[in-house]
């Protein structure tokens, strides 16, 4: 994993549930590229126009709460979201995202530095997130060893291909 991860922020509020990340009417879609088109369609009209691959999604508490639909994590990943930074995450969404190799960062005070359109830089060694426009930063929680192992492998599927894999070791 790179030490620094940077991207332009797209800012959302609290309790952005997976229905808003990936609306129910598209749940019968199985093609990942098509899923990516519906990313955050329930939460924001501007996102579709303004988002560029590598940008970041920044949110309040409980991002990804609600339904376990993996489509939500797939859509974010395939759309090209560099990482999602939020105060907290729904736990099923967290697992789904890490399993796919999508970086999620918990930043309890992200609301103090979030700014639509400004760039955010994550420092994975110093455990900080910095708004590059204002220079203000906030602490991030280190990603667990377990999640890092999965992220560094590009997702859990490459680890699970081995016959005798015990993921807890």
């Amino acid at each position, binding site marked *: 994993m790179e030490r620094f991860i940077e991207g332009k922020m797209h800012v959302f509020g609290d309790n952005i549930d997976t*229905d808003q990340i990936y609306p129910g009417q598209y749940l*019968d879609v199985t093609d990942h590229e098509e899923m990516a088109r519906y990313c955050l369609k329930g939460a924001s009209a501007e996102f579709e126009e303004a988002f560029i691959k590598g940008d970041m999604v920044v949110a309040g508490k409980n991002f990804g709460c609600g339904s376990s*639909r993996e489509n939500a994590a797939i859509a974010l990943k395939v759309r090209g979201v560099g990482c999602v930074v939020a105060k907290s995450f729904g736990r099923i969404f967290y697992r789904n995202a890490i399993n796919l190799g999508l970086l999620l960062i918990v930043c309890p005070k992200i609301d103090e530095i979030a700014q639509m359109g400004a760039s955010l830089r994550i420092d994975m060694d110093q455990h900080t997130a910095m708004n590059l426009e204002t220079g203000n930063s906030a602490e991030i929680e280190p990603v667990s060893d377990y999640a890092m192992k999965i992220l560094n492998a590009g997702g859990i599927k490459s680890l699970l291909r081995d016959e005798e894999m015990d993921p807890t070791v």
Partner: protein
Amino acid sequence: MHALEKILAAHAGVDKVCAGEIVNCDIDVAGINDLYPQAMYSFREINGKKVAHPERVVIFLDHYAPASTIRQAENQKQFREFAREQGIEGLMEVGQGVCHQILADKGYSAPGRLMVATDSHTPTHGAFGAFSTGVGATDISCILKTGKLWFRVPEIIRINLEGELPPGVFAKDAILHVIGKLGADYAIYRGVEFAGSLIKKLSIAERMTLCNMTTEMGAKAAYIQPDSITEAFLQAKNISGYTIYETDPDFIAGAEHTFDVSELSPQIAAPSSVDHVSDLHEYAGIPVDQAFLGTCTGGRIDDIALAARILKGRKISPSTRMIVVPASKNTLQKAIEKGYMQDLIEAGCTFVTPGCAACLGTHQGLIAEGESCITSSSRNFPGRMGHKKGEIYLASPAAVAASALTGVITDPAPYLE
């Protein structure tokens, strides 16, 4: 250890676990529903050839069943082919109902079992004293291949519910009140145990409603200690081969809260989050275009019985459509036998195929822009049941029926006398 920790320890083959630890566990029941064809694809991507324990896998066609689009039909067809190829006998076809109700009806839910399903409301089965949790497609594909899954042992929160529910107030009102007080993110990663004098009086159905709704506080799992009510339910279905775990007397919960329900009035979660809870009377009189009675949260026979009691011999408001989705085929059959279906149809309700229906906006009762819906389901996020600018109110099944009758949000108590 807490009983939930003991369940994890037993399935991980270790003597002891503590909160925060990662364990790898054998899974007793692995449920997959029709929103998750990705489970089959991920299984192939990880070189899955033969499902490790096909007898433990249950496939549910419930979230858009019968299929309303060609793609939905295609996805369900793939599941049938997979079940056949892998010798998975537990294929719950169109019309069998919602996954969680089927698991309860058919005896999959039992104390001490470790149950995982591709559905966020899987904590429902904590009502039976199981450790039961939801996951996505790729995690379930891991279980398909290996029969196991890893978990981080959760911290346990205890919620004590004391007192008696007043007339017209039900388990749904109690849990809405709790979520309103604690918040939609309160229980993230935690296990939530319900205890207290109220719990001992609640039926399995009401316990399922409590546990089901812990998902809306972010809970990983829920738990109610099995007792004579649990055992009577299981005995009636001839279910055996389970283990009841008990929490150690010296176990200390991460947090404990006590709520007295004796003064509680009917509750409502207003748009657009589940913790946006108030006394229902604060919203009384707001017109409702649709009343929706169903789902794993509030579509059981007791819920339909309450609606029938309120609506029998009456007609619902001409400005409100009421959709009734029995949670399972079993529930539908009971509703027919007891005359509830007739009573409700005569009152102006319409029935749809047992399954999830409009709960998640896939089919069978969506709402248009500017429409309002009162529902016995679990979520009211924007766009959940149709248009983003539709308004969804969560309430008890009784309040849903009373509101259909009057055409506006209504306290059910006067109609239950």
